[in-house]
């Protein structure tokens, strides 16, 4: 009897370990593909992979996070405005589902802050005021949940860089922000292997670009 209970436990442990391993593997592969993707079909394919993972792993927010991220990237590639909005709707749908699973995750608020500027880029004159406020609000929440989230600093620096100087933007104002972001990336350690860990290279590239163009 004792023995059979022991085997049962072993089987359970084994299968759990097995399942988890599948998840980790599927995620790692998909994440790698995500950051290699360049065209819309490539992004769609990887977004679909994350969607498939999310429908099994119903308590995990990460597959939804990456699916949402993929659709934001798709919206950057799309030229037609109506379609852009449609892709962002999809990104928002995944993000909302992820928030429902994990309401207090800094990375999810950061991603929300990343999504809003794409919305106002479609019609800046009409949407600017609405989405600027929403973006700031999301980023503040992201920082409150994790004051060291480097992606929040990176996004703020980028926004500042692209804003006209009269709004308090421009390269000079953005430079120290990119530097702070670089420091935050330096000390950042992702919680797990598959946790969000992107942005460092982009930040470095922007930093380099500014330092090269700025008068010494």
């Amino acid at each position: 009897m004792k023995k059979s209970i022991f085997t049962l436990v072993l089987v359970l442990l084994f299968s759990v370990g097995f399942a988890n391993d599948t998840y980790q593997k599927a995620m790692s592969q998909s994440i790698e593909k995500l950051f290699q993707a360049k065209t819309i079909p490539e992004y769609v394919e990887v977004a679909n992979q994350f969607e498939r993972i999310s429908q099994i792993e119903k308590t995990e927010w990460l597959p939804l996070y990456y699916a949402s991220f993929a659709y934001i990237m798709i919206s950057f590639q799309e030229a037609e405005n109506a379609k852009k909005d449609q892709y962002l709707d999809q990104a928002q749908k995944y993000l909302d589902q992820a928030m429902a699973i994990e309401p207090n995750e800094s990375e999810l608020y950061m991603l929300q802050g990343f999504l809003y500027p794409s919305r106002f880029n479609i019609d800046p004159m009409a949407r600017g005021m609405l989405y600027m406020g929403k973006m700031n609000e999301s980023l503040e929440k992201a920082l409150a949940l994790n004051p060291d989230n480097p992606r929040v600093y990176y996004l703020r620096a980028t926004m500042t860089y692209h804003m006209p100087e009269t709004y308090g933007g421009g390269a000079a104002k953005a430079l120290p922000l990119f530097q702070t972001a670089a420091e935050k990336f330096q000390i950042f350690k992702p919680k797990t292997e598959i946790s969000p860990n992107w942005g460092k290279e982009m930040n470095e590239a922007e930093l380099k670009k500014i330092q090269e163009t700025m008068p010494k």
Partner: protein
Amino acid sequence: MRSIFTIFVFILLSASTFAQVRLSGKVTDSKNNPLPGANVFIQNSYDGTTTDSIGNFSFKTDQKGIQNLSASFIGYKPFLRKLDLDSAKTISAIIILQESEDQIDEVVINAGAFEASDVKKAVVLRVFDIATTPSAQGDIFGALGTLPGVQKVGEDGRVFVRGGEGYETKSFMDGMLVATPYSSKMPDMPTRGRFSPLLFSGTLFSTGAYSAEYGQALSSIVDMKTNSIETEDKSSISIMTVGLMGSTTKCWEKSSLSLNGDIVTSGLSNKINKQQVDWIKSPLGIDGTVMYRQKTGKTGMYKLFGTFNNSTSEMFYPNTQLGTIQDIALNSSNVYLNNTFNRQLGENWMVKSGLAFNYDHQNIDLDKDQVATNQKMIQAKLLFSRFLNEQTELKLGADWVNFSYEQKIRMDGNYRLPFTNNELSGFAEMEYKLSKKFATRLGFRAENSSLLNETTIVPRFSGAYKTGDHSQISLACGEFYQNPENDYLKFAPQLKPEKASHAVMTWQYLTELKTFRVEGYLKKYNNLVKYTQPLATNPLDFNNQGSGHAEGVDIFWRDKETFKLTDYWISYSWINARRNYKDYTMSAIPTFVSEHNLSVVYKRFLPAINTYASLTYSFASSRPYHDPNLSGFMNAKTQSYNDISLSLTYLMQMFGKQSVLHLMVNNLAGFDNVYGYNFSNTRNTAGKYESTPIKSPFVRQIILLVSIML
């Protein structure tokens, strides 16, 4: 030990029985077009793939037995089908996806309606557009004047729609009635809306054949949607050449509070920017607004909007009719409170409830005479809606308005003219979507007035059919009743409601950045108030025998795409209208109608100087008037109307704060527009009726404003 071994054997065995099954096939839409990029997978497994460029898929699965094959694609309903994976080694399937209902290119019933929204995606106007249209001078009703179907009536300022008078346009806020939406005005001078456009996230403006939810309006409705819960603390102050403004917003997790206040006086600017008016006391207005929003539960939202206004002014008015110069002093106070509460009720029902209160006091001292008017309105409204199924939405509503009016006149004796009306209304409306392309809406509205002792029941119908990806054709018609104006009811409460019938047909092409629409309409008026002499006061002088009609075509074109950083729209309206009402001796074109109306609004951002420039050109053809020196009725015409208005918005940093410098110039070119003429009641010594032209109080109006975000 042995048992562990058996387990391994068991696992190995079972693994070997996991014979892989290959699934292949194609995903298409309902018209057999392939859908590349669709997600096809076995539900609750990792097994699946993405369709290729011609919609084909192929993948292997280790799953066994009865499983769900699932497919999904943006803009389509998810697909699910049971499959027996043990049945064969290769399974092929053709998957047809149905388009989902919430696609943005779904048909929307919109005949007669212009919608401005920050929330919805494809709309004609945004709130920002209203705030920056120069000829509007920050007035919502002024901005509506650049849309087709609206007449230019410069001496009035209200919204005159398709051969209808100003009072035929009713204003609502979050679906609740606003009894006094315009500020009190001096004779021959335009009025303005009471509310700042920045308080609203959307406006529904309908120029005809609107839903059964709206009643007591013959021509048009304007429903302003107040901002939702605020999410950012903010404050700002503005200094204008005509006064001061301040606002502050505070947010909590589930609620927000905003306060606005302003003092407006043209005293200073009158010295620089001379008006053609002899002011004794320049207009002075004080306004305060409070907005509170509270989320309750999961779906509930409570909104409170309250506003207070007091304004005073005094002028010498050359009264041509009487041939004297009068001293007119105006003092008015207005309070408006609007409470709405919306929430979901159970799974299917949505309930909207509202309670509104409006108080208006106006006192006019006319030389030694005095006219004091008090109006009080209380409204309670309840609206239920539910989806009976995916295609059908049902709306049911009830509405009670208690309105009391009292006018006290002191003029060789004291007179009191009071009346009270209880208006009870109910409506039912069903919207049915036969397909993604075809929708219809049928509604009925019943109204009962206690004062007029009259019950009316009217039908409303509209339908829309999508003719292409971005184009649709719509048709709407309906009947509308409205109680006679207060100025008639106070003398003659036995009058019946006035009646209008509308038929509207629209063709529209709409994308995110381009809009084109043509709308043709027919309108018929019955039961209009008529009176036997110009200054009638005897109840027996009034009757409901007036009538009229209007036909026309409205064209609207807007383009934000073709020119870089440029947005422009063009509105053109042609109208043929006749009326026999008031003291008209025959059917004639009413004085507020011009046959052709044109507006061109051009907006452009100039990045080099960080300035947003807007220009409006307005044209209206001549308006008729009655000249008693000539024979016949409505026998003369004014010159046509022209206006060029400009506004510049310069974005800058001031004291390290984000700031805006805003300059508005109306009638830049200084056109000498004449809206009509006032004639003397008596002949002069030469046997002529003398006249004076009715003009704008300004040649050019210039307003400068600096706003600082704190």
